[in-house]
């Protein structure tokens, strides 16, 4: 898990991964996510892992139903990807990292 302290950089990506307990699926999702981020967003991303078993009240804010769910908080617009993130291609499309529009917006 890569953690950058303090303030968000202007082009920093903030990703939240919602999981429920320590399941194999959750672990796989986190592993897959870290690999994708390292490859495509190296140095400008932050991943927050939220365990809903410990913080059930947090599921409401981001309207979480499925687990695991990855929420791209920054940059906007908000994006959600559900599943274990095993298909890199669709994760990249889901995060808008696969062409179409380049994700280089100011916040």
């Amino acid at each position: 898990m890569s953690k950058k302290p303090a303030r968000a950089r202007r082009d920093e990506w903030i990703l939240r991964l919602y999981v429920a307990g320590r399941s194999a699926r959750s672990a796989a999702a986190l592993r897959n996510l870290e690999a994708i981020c390292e490859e495509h967003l190296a140095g400008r991303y932050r991943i927050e892992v939220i365990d809903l078993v410990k913080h059930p009240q947090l599921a409401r804010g981001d309207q979480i139903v499925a687990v695991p769910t990855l929420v791209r908080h920054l940059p906007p617009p908000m994006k959600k990807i559900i599943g274990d993130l095993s298909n890199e291609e669709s994760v990249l499309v889901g995060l808008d990292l696969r062409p179409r529009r380049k994700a280089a917006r100011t916040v």
Partner: protein
Amino acid sequence: MLPMPTSTSRPRRAAPSPAVPPLGKASTGIDGFDQITGGGLPRGRPTLVCGGPGCGKTLFGLEFLIHGAERGEPGVFVTFEETEQDLTQNVASLGHNLPQLVRQNRLAIEYIRVERSEIEETGEYDLEGLFIRLDHALRSIKAKRIVLDTIESLFAGLSNTGVLRAELRRLFAWLKERRITAVITGERGSDTLTRQGLEEYVSDCVIFLDHRINDEVSTRRLRIVKYRGSSHGTNEYPFMIDRRGIAVLPVTSLQLIHEATSERIPTGLRWLDAMFGGEGYFRGSSVLFSGAAGTAKTTLAAYFLDAACRRGERAICFQFEESPAQYSRNMRSVGLDLGRWVKNRRLQIHAARPTLYGLEYHLATMHREVDDFQPSVVVVDPLSSFMGGSFQEINSMVMRLIDLLKSRGITGVFTHLIPGSGSAQEVEVGVSSLIDTWILLRNAPPGEDGGRHLSILKSRGMAHSDARRSFVLTGDGPRATNDPDDARPRRGGGR
């Protein structure tokens, strides 16, 4: 807060059959529904409430929840479609204060939104997030009840139906394990009860709500498709939604358990009483005046009302052709002052356009008015205004109406307009069989100075005259003209 009554401490009208161990019931507070189910929904189990758009399923769920919340069974309303504000507004019009119940921790609203356009799916997932949210909401107020409205929305938001189905199955089992009384709503499918076949998962109790428009008049019906471990009626029960919410009309007609009294009740006209052995109708019976236009049906019925009020009894007149003011004025012209009975609260006149609402709506309204006012006599004038509905519908409505009155010992007088010449054959046979006393009115042929004829076609269980009586309408009311000796009673029975 009242302690929640349990099914055992709460004797209901319909006792469970001795062979089946009594099943706990959770009262819904919906008028009539608890009656036809012997106490409400199966306690601690899920119930599916399904029907087309606008059938009232959300309202059903809300009423069930609010009723519980007000009686010490907190509940969670999980909405997949409407926001909290929408819900609050919808029930505010029915006189419920949702925000207050929420503040008091008796009710919680969980709005769950799953928007497909925002979601990408990749790889395996489950709905543990949903379970965690429900669990959190249930725990936060120690809920005993839950409504999921409409969980099928998940199918629109997520594409993996295999996962969804497995998770729904798990969800219903999970609710059951927690002994939560649940209402799950579902949208009607093209040839299934619900689009996603939820009926396969919810096997304890299934209720179907129907909303039909016939001849531009809306009718609502409720059917209990299944209720495991409990006796229930299989009929379609008419119901309505009015300012007090849902009201279901139970049918008990077929039981024919009404008590029959031999007490008599005057008709309001001495010469008419004379045709029934001088005493009038049986109290609690149903009387029908049939006749063509202008044969004084309304007047004869009004005299009956007036007589009741004179004796100090309460009476209701359901008027479907005239406004109360017009009706009172017209009756003054034949010697009746109904206004004074209205003023001293012995008489209520309710007027409505018959076509404005469905039959069920009228019936339900009558039901409530009768229960509120507790009259001893009721006049419905005319019954034939409802002939716009199908014959079956009218028949069942009249049957229910008569049943309602009889079960309360109320004497009912109905008028019925026979179109055209006024022959008795034109009267619906089905209706007449429900009537104890049937009186036919005819206009005298031209040249007989505008008189009218009255004859008793039948009067069950009492001596009555079989003569034809002539009468004229005067400023002092209907007056008999021919020789009273013709009208001596004979011994007779209905059928």
